[in-house]
């Protein structure tokens, strides 16, 4: 039975014409899969993340303490205003983020250079995993409250997840895709602009 408000000709035309409505682009399978994996890890073990965060901050605090103490002795007679500020959480996270960005920049630059030379070894996957842990700690810290910082950390998380999943010597195509992805997102330029000029504090402490 046909209802009053039915019009088969219109319905047929509509079904055809509406195919253009929000027509999807090809599915970015690998990119989404990497993010799904990262998201699952982040949600799966919050206790682990907080434990690591606490440990990392403790070590970082010791590092900052040593660094500021060293600064204090090297500028004898100077006003210790900066030292007083170091007790603020903001500075702690800022220092942690700066140190992390510096390490990540060094790592990604090395990764690209080795890839160009045709080398991808397990050293990179291990380092990527280490940096990934720090990335996730920072994503869950107040350092990620700034939207630009969060966006950069998320880009880095994606790149590092992909590198950590590479199989040494057998994954050159995927490695190429990672560097293409890095270029498209301008990861390295953004990363470099996030690192302030001058020496990176507590760089050698390996605190985080």
């Amino acid at each position: 039975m046909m209802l009053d408000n039915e019009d088969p000709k219109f319905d047929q035309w509509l079904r055809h014409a509406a195919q253009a409505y929000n027509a999807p682009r090809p599915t970015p399978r690998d990119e989404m899969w990497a993010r799904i994996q990262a998201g699952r890890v982040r949600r799966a073990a919050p206790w682990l993340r907080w434990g690591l965060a606490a440990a990392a901050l403790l070590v970082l605090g010791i590092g900052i303490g040593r660094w500021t103490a060293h600064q204090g002795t090297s500028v004898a007679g100077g006003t210790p205003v900066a030292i007083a500020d170091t007790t603020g959480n903001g500075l702690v996270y800022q220092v942690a983020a700066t140190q992390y960005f510096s390490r990540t920049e060094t790592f990604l630059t090395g990764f690209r250079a080795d890839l160009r030379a045709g080398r991808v070894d397990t050293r990179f996957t291990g380092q990527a995993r280490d940096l990934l842990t720090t990335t996730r700690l920072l994503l869950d810290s107040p350092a990620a409250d700034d939207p630009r910082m969060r966006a950069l950390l998320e880009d880095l998380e994606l790149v590092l997840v992909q590198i950590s999943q590479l199989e040494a010597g057998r994954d050159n195509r995927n490695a190429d895709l990672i560097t293409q992805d890095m270029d498209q997102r301008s990861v390295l330029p953004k990363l470099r602009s996030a690192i302030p000029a001058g020496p990176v504090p507590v760089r050698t402490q390996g605190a985080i």
Partner: protein
Amino acid sequence: MDERDLINRVRAGDSIAERALYDAHVDRVYRLAYRLAGDEALAQDFTQETFIRAFEKLDTFRGDSALSTWLHAITTSVVLNGLRKVKRFHRREADLDTADGVGVGRREAEPDLKVRLRQAIDALPQGYRTVFVMHDIEGFTHEEIGVALGVETGTSKAQLSRARAKLRESLADFAGEWIA
């Protein structure tokens, strides 16, 4: 590999099976998310959230329906909730614009049929639009839509009929297109 085996392997923590499950369903989930969201970044976010939840909750999947139906129920829930949040955010932004006196006037409707059709579908009430997109554009059956949205099959049919009626009314100026 049969679907039940695949699910059991995923439940046992087999990462290859996880990827196989994802590969088997991601296209349809992403298409649906994209059709409903109309934005690539949102569609990706919704798809990711769908699979994260699906892997988290796979133990609760009892197999009463197909896995795809269960996944599409998660997808629609994630997308519709997400779109509500986005809408609230845009409304707040629009309110701020109006308060600042910097809001732009409403754009005149384009005479182009494609644009008018898009506007008419966007203007449908959320429930009508969802059923219309799922049935007429993505080819879901009323039974699948009923399970995904948690409504009776009859409700899905009624909403589709009302959606089409509203669209026919909105596009009355173009009646020649389908009569021809």
